[in-house]
């Protein structure tokens, strides 16, 4: 099939899934935070608030976009656009699974592969700061400006440990391509420990994760938008779609970062167990989830549960059945298994993000900078040195 | 429209950018913009290196432009620090105002 058409199809699928996922990520976050704080979170719109993201989107679109009179219009409008565009671009080089064949078409589960994919992601993420900085500056508002400045300083500072942490697995795998990186992580030590980079690079992984928090302006590093000091920071003046764009950028960045972490440290779509066992895991999980839902649906605690939980159970069991069907339809297997493990790992990491947000307080600004330069940077450096040394010694 | 362009066009592009950088250096009054014009010139140089690397099928040009980038980064750090001190002492970024020494 034509390369362009194929790419268009892939891009369409990815964009659709990804944007929907972003919307629901917010729902998940609100839910999880709600439960951490012993609330229920969104509950009204749709069953368990499942339609809440949709409602939010409608609200944001229909709201009046306020253009403050004192802003620098061009840059004010450019900033959110820049932020969201740059955040979404990185997705294009991330692989979601191995090479697959559907009918006569053989393709990778990836929009495009670059030899320097990892560099590309770093490059894009390093440019990502402009959206925030520019937005803060163009608002012509001192809180926004301070937010923008803080964020640019913070992002530059944390980019270093981030990049250094990334460099260590690159040394091990000797590649800059995500695919080869994942391939490198296939197989098992002693037959059951997956050859993921997280094991030799646990320090690098931790540094990466912490820096990732800062790069995405998440708590405990969300200084740029610290509500109580900066009145929401760089996007104080933004409303309506432009506000949504900033929000989307933030969540997209989160997804990207977790995806990169997965690909670099957690073996990408490689299952954590050897082949035959791993195949049963999704069936078990979805089946169990379906059964639990069914149980609760049959013994409803609330009135609505009578309809929603069996529906959910049906869905889960259906998915379990789909995975079961892979035993008979080998075509589906690589797609589904890869997607399962990949998304699963991402979800776990995203949960960590949310979890941290629910539990940790915010740093002070000087502590934040100090942490980057005095703790994280040397750690990443040390990690890189040790890795390099090990690689050099073992290659001889 | 031709399907491909000769390398000399890339070189002309770089010459144009270099010239624009020179023009910016000469005409602009804001110190930071002047500095950015220099960066534009360096970028033009890099394009020349990469283009020649392509023509010569060598990687050396890339390495040279890599060094140019590193040096540009160092220069930016120092240059911006200098600009900060100037601003701190004089409260202006206009290059004409920074001339306490006269003939």
């Amino acid at each position: 099939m034509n390369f362009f058409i194929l790419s268009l199809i892939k891009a369409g699928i990815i964009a659709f899934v990804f944007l929907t996922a972003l919307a629901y990520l917010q729902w998940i976050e609100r839910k999880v935070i709600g439960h951490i704080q012993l609330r229920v979170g969104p509950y009204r719109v749709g069953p368990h608030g499942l339609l809440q993201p949709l409602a939010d989107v409608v609200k944001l679109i229909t709201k009046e976009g306020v253009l403050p009179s004192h802003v620098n219009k061009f840059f004010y409008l450019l900033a959110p656009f820049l932020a969201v565009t740059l955040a979404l671009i990185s997705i294009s080089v991330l692989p979601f699974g191995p090479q697959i064949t559907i009918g006569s078409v053989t393709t990778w589960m990836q929009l495009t592969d670059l030899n320097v994919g990892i560099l590309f992601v770093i490059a894009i993420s390093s440019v990502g700061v402009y959206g925030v900085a520019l937005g803060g500056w163009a608002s012509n508002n001192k809180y926004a400006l301070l937010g923008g400045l803080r964020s640019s300083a913070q992002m530059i500072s944390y980019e270093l440990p981030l990049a250094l942490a990334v460099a260590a697995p690159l040394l091990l795998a000797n590649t800059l391509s995500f695919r080869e990186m994942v391939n490198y992580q296939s197989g098992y030590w002693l037959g059951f420990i997956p050859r993921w980079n997280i094991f030799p690079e646990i320090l690098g992984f931790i540094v990466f994760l912490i820096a990732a928090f800062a790069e995405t302006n998440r708590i405990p590093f969300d200084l740029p938008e610290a509500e109580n000091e900066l009145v929401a920071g760089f996007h104080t003046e933004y409303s309506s779609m432009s506000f949504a764009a900033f929000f989307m950028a933030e969540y997209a960045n989160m997804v990207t970062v977790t995806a990169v972490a997965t690909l670099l440290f957690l073996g990408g779509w490689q299952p954590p167990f050897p082949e035959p066992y791993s195949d049963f895991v999704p069936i078990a999980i979805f089946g169990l989830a379906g059964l639990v839902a069914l149980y609760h649906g049959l013994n409803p605690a609330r009135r609505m549960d009578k309809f929603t939980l069996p529906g959910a159970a049906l869905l889960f069991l259906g998915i379990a059945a789909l995975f079961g069907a892979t035993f008979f339809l080998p075509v589906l297997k690589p797609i589904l298994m890869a997607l399962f493990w990949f998304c699963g790992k991402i979800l776990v990491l995203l949960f960590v993000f949310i979890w941290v947000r629910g539990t940790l307080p915010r740093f002070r600004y000087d502590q934040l900078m100090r942490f980057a330069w005095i703790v994280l940077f040397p750690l990443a450096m040390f990690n890189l040195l040790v890795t390099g040394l090990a690689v050099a010694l073992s290659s001889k | 429209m031709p399907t491909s362009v000769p390398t000399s066009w890339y070189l002309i592009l770089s010459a144009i950018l270099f010239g624009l950088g020179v023009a910016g250096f000469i005409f602009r009054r804001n110190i930071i913009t002047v500095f950015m014009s220099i960066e534009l010139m360096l970028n033009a140089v890099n394009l020349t290196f990469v283009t020649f690397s392509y023509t010569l099928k060598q990687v050396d040009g890339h390495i040279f432009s890599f060094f140019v980038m590193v040096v540009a980064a160092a220069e930016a750090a120092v240059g911006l620090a200098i600009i900060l001190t100037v601003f701190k002492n004089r409260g202006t970024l206009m290059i004409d105002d920074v001339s306490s020494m006269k003939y």
Partner: protein
Amino acid sequence: MTALIFFLFAGIAVFCGISLVAQTHPIASALSLIGVMGSLAILYLQLGGEFIAAAQMIVYAGAIMVLFVFVIMLLNAGAEGTSLRVSAFAKYLGMFLLVAFLGLISFIIQAMLPRTEGVVFGAFKGGTTADVGMKLFTVYLLPFEVTSVLILIAILGAIVLARKEI
């Protein structure tokens, strides 16, 4: 296709370059410069400079220019006045000289370079990270190491010039 990409991004680069020089506000100039850098990165890719394209984005657009933007914001530098610091005559003379210079360079380039075949994407594959790294750590080992002194100086300079008290 190659030509299309070239003309597109060369056009963007030149437009942004002119914008850099013509804009009165430093932020606008900075963004124009980023635009130039971005389009040059694409052209590098086209010329087989994978690594250098990425480095261009990371180092130039991602680090150096952020620093610029940061400083512009920090100083809250306003737009320049409309009057340039040179007289109108000098301005036009300068423009003329610039055009003349460019024309000359273009002529020299066109006339002197041997006729080259068009740029084909992928015709030169020697610019991968591996190639760059291999050369960098063998032949160009010394400059690479010496560059670290440069970085040290830059850090030192920033400290000397910008810290609170000596």
